[in-house]
Each structure stands twice: as C-alpha cells, then as structure tokens.
C-alpha cells in the first residue's frame, strides 16, 4: 500500500508549500474549512455566552433576568440599571470607586515600569558577583504562593499604621515584587545585540546613559506588555484591597462590588450586574485595543491572563 502511494503523492503535493495531509480537491478543502468554521463559531458562542449574558442582563429589568427568560434579547432594554449602579453604594458614588481603581492601576503601572526595567537591566546587562544566584531566587518567587507572605506583611503594615492607605498595595509595585515583569524584561533585553552597549561604552557612556538612552527606547514592546498586564492585574485585584482597605471612600471597584453584593443581596440584580459590567469595561476596552499585544505577550512570554 505505501509503496503504491509514495510515487503518486509527491507529484500531487509538490506545489503546496505547507503541510497537507492528503491531496484534496478544492471542493473537499472548502467543505473542510466550512466544518472548521462551524465548529469554531459554535465554540465561540459557548465561550462568549457568559459575557454576552452579562451585558444583555445589565440592560434588562430585574423581572426578566432570572425566571423563565433565557433569551439574550428583550424588548424592555433600558439604561435604568446603569443609572442605579452609578449611584454607588454606602454613600459613595461609583465614580469615586472608578477613580480609586484608576489611581491604584496607574500607580501600579508606573511603579512596575520603573522598578522592573531598572532591575531587569542589572540582571541582563551588568556582570556582578551573585547575579546568577539572585536571578535564580527571582525565578523561584514566580512559583511562590502569595499567601506565605501576606500575614507578616499585614502585621508590619498594621504596626506602621499604614492599613487603610494605598501604600501596602503600591509599595510592592515600586519594588519590582511582580517577578513576572522583571523576567519578561530580562528575556527581552537579552535578545538585544550586545554590540550596542559595547559601542556606547567605548564612547564613554556609563550604565545610566546606556540604560536610559539605548535600552529604554528599544524596550518599548516589553514596556507596553508590562503596562497592559500590570494595569489589568491591578484593576482586577481583590485580595489586596480586601486585606488593607476599610473605608468605602477608598474602595476600588472589586471591593465596591462585594459591598454591593452584600447589601443588595438579590434585591436589585440588574444594578448589580450593571455594576459588574462597568467594572469590567476598562479591561474589555483594553483588550479590544491592545488585543495583539496581549495575545502575543501570552504566547511568547507565557504570561498569565
């Protein structure tokens, strides 16, 4: 069988540059492609259903969200839920929660960019004793469960009187505590040609000059991925604010949402879901705008979502 098939096959396959299991007619190829798209689209429907359901429900009156109504469409779509959601909870407006989330997320981005790029430069471009040991430890912290450090950290911040401030939530960002970003930047810098630094050194440039005027401009893609992910992670973070913040005026959106769930338990479903949509809105916009960067970042760096 195989000896019979081999002589004919290469001839049929020769024009195809990419792997093709069998020589197929155009019709068979089209059928195959149609089946692929049907399967993939069906799967897309299933995967995106929760998000669509959330968005549809946020526009529906309470009476239509639960009950026998499973369709995404409704003739009673309105913005009422969003109006209620914008009022906020516990005497604090949702706009305030938004501002708080934004302050934390921007702080996280700025801190991470500054600290991770500087530290990554040391790992990637400077030879110093102990470098490989510290690099190994940095990698190890990637695998470290966060819970091992939260209790002592909390105790220290509590004794310093910093509970209910943003300092415990931001200080780690300014100290490159998210090792993933340091690692990402180290990998990126290692792929930049070494001749760049050597030439600059011959011209008498020190590390500060090399870092600021050669490395940073070239690292733009890594800096953008880092900014996007640190923004989204900070925006979605729940445990940190839950531990450290007590007054609702300081709450970011995830904590505000929890407060909303606690206080309006099943009484105003629509508003709760509308607020969930509002809380995810920036992440969804980020995703639509920076899709390429995000998905490429995951596939090349193994970044977690």
């Amino acid at each position, binding site marked *: 069988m*195989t000896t019979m*098939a081999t002589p004919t*096959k290469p001839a049929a*396959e020769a024009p195809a540059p990419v*792997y093709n299991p*069998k020589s197929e007619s155009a019709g068979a190829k089209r059928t195959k*492609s149609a089946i*692929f798209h049907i399967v*993939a689209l069906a799967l897309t429907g299933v*995967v995106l259903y929760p*998000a669509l359901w*959330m968005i549809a429900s946020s526009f529906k009156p309470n009476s239509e969200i*639960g009950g026998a109504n*499973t369709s995404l469409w409704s003739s009673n779509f309105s913005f009422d839920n969003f109006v209620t959601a914008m009022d906020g909870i516990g005497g604090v407006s949702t706009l305030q929660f938004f501002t708080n989330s934004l302050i934390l997320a921007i702080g996280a981005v700025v801190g991470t960019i*500054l600290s*991770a790029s*500087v*530290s990554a*430069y*040391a790992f990637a471009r400077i*030879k*110093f*004793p102990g*470098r490989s040991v510290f690099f190994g430890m*940095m990698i190890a*912290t990637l*695998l*470290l469960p*966060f*819970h*091992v*450090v*939260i*209790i*002592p*950290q909390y*105790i*220290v911040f509590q004794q310093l009187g910093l509970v209910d401030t943003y300092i415990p939530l931001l200080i*780690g960002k300014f*100290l490159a*505590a998210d090792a993933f970003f340091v690692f990402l930047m180290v990998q990126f810098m290692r792929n930049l040609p070494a001749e760049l630094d050597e030439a600059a050194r011959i011209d008498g440039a*020190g590390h500060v000059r090399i870092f600021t005027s050669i490395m940073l401009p070239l690292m733009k893609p890594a800096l953008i991925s880092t900014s996007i992910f640190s923004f989204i992670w900070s925006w979605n973070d*729940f*445990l940190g604010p839950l*531990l450290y913040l007590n007054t609702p005026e300081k709450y970011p959106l*995830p904590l505000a*949402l*929890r407060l909303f769930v*606690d206080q309006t338990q099943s009484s105003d479903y629509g508003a709760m879901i509308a607020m*969930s949509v509002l*809380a*995810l809105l920036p*992440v*969804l916009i980020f995703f639509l705008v920076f899709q390429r960067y*995000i998905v490429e970042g*995951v*596939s090349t760096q*193994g970044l*977690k*979502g």
Partner: protein
Amino acid sequence: MTQSPTLSRRSTPSAPPLPRKSRQRGADARAGYTFLLPWLLGFIALTVGPMISSLYLSFTNYNLFDPPKWIGLDNYTAMFQDERFLQSVGVTVGYVVFGTPLKLAAALAVAMLLNSARKGQGFYRSAFYAPSLIGASVSIAIVWKAMFGDSGPVDQGLSFFGINLGGWVGNPSMTMPMFILLTVWQFGAPMVIFLAGLKQIPADLYEAASMDGAGPVRKFFNITWPMLSPVVFFNLLMETIHAFQIFSSAYIISNGEGGPAGSTLFYTLYLYLRGFSDFRMGYASAMAWLLLIVVGLITLVIFRTSKSWVHYSGDAK
C-alpha cells in the same frame, strides 16, 4: 599561610593590567547592585523577611494584639484534627486534580483545532483568550453565581433537556462542577501557549509520517505529543500552582463563607478566614507554610518526572 605569599608574588608580575580590570569589575559590581536595588529591597522586605517571620509565627499562638506565644508544633498537629481544615484540603485537591487536567485538555484540543485552519485563526484565538483575562475578577464571579443560581440560565437550559438540578450554587454536590467549569472556561491562556508550541513543530515531520502511512492518532502520539511536551510541562506547572491559589471567585460566590456545607471552602479561603476573621495568625501562617511545602513538593515531582516524558530536541535552543 605558606601559600598566600606565593600567590601574591605570582600575581605581582601581571599587576599592571589587573588594577584596571578589577576597577572595571568593581564599578560593574557597584552599578549592578545599584540597578538591582529596587528588586533587592523588595525581595528582602516583602518576600524573605515575611517568609522567615511567617515560619516563626507558624510555631506560635498569635492574635495580632498580644505578643506571639511559642507553642511548638501545635498549630501543625491541630490542623489534622480540624475538620474544616481537612474539608478545605479535600475541596482544593478535588479542584486541582479535576480542573487542571480538564482545562489543559480543552486548551490542547482547541489549539490543535485552530492550528489546522488557515483563515480566521487570529479572531478565534482572541475570542477564546478573552475569558482568561477576566475570569478571576469579582464581576465574573457575580455573573457565575447568577448564571448557576436558582432558575438561572444554566438551570433553565438543563431543564429544557429534562435535567432538573435546580441552582448549582446552593447545592453542595454541584458547586465543585461549577468551579471546574469556571476554570475550564479560562482555557484560553494555556491554549495560546499550546498554539505557539504547535507552530514550532516542523511540517516535514508530519509529511514524512504521512508517507509512512501514519494516521492522525499515531501522528499525535509520535510527533505532536513529544514535540509539544516542554510546553505541556510549562502549562501543567503554572496551571497547577495557580489552581491551588484560587481565592476571589470562591470568596464572592460563597459570600466569604465557603458554603453551602463547606463545599466551596477552598484552602486559601479558609486560610484567610482563620487569619483575618478569627485572628489566628499563627495557625494561618502554619497553613501558609504547609501550602508552600506542598506546592514545592508538587513542583519537584513535576520537574523530576518530566525527565521521563518531556522531550527536548537536541538542536533546539
């Protein structure tokens, strides 16, 4: 004593080039530690320090207000008589053991499906990835709770097929499938990584196998799986470690209580409750260290066994 003079004498003739070099090395060392300072400070103050003190606290009775009292191994022994603790271990192990392989299987299957297509791959890849970005958020936990609640869309949909389970949220035997579905739903992140790995497999390997008459099953086990094994290894390690740390969704869906009947009392949720609502910081620290040890052991096991199933091709960098 006898050796040091010889050494210094031997180095004297070559002295002229040395100072410059060592000065350069000294400057580099100084620059290295200066640049490393942010990370180093964070590493000492936010990781090593807290790790040491939580290890110490795990041997004490500490409630945040009175000074810690040394009680030796009592926290650790108490854990194994604590029914809620044992329950939290059961819940978490069930979640990791069933959720992670299912999620990875879904990720691999969909990655292979997408890899077979020429057009539209980018669109589907983005669409399937989206849940990974929002899956751990409070918003999605609220949506999940509503969707799987009494007469929510899941209940309605199943009733349509004659399956009447009622709400999953209030049913202790259905909460675990609900959480497993939540993690499987986020198959996109490992899928994107699998897809990148699949693209690295040279097409001529499959061509050669086709010529030898290999079917799709044999091609999968003889080419795809071994060539992809480093990526499988990476995904398995990362997803397992992450699965142990599920917190926000469990907290929101169960109102921070781990109910019904303790069926959503995940390890980290119980740790949080012990530490920050019962103020048993010593006990919670012991739980944290046990988690660290278990995660460390699992990492070790995955690394060790990987030698037998992870295949690194010789020419690959």
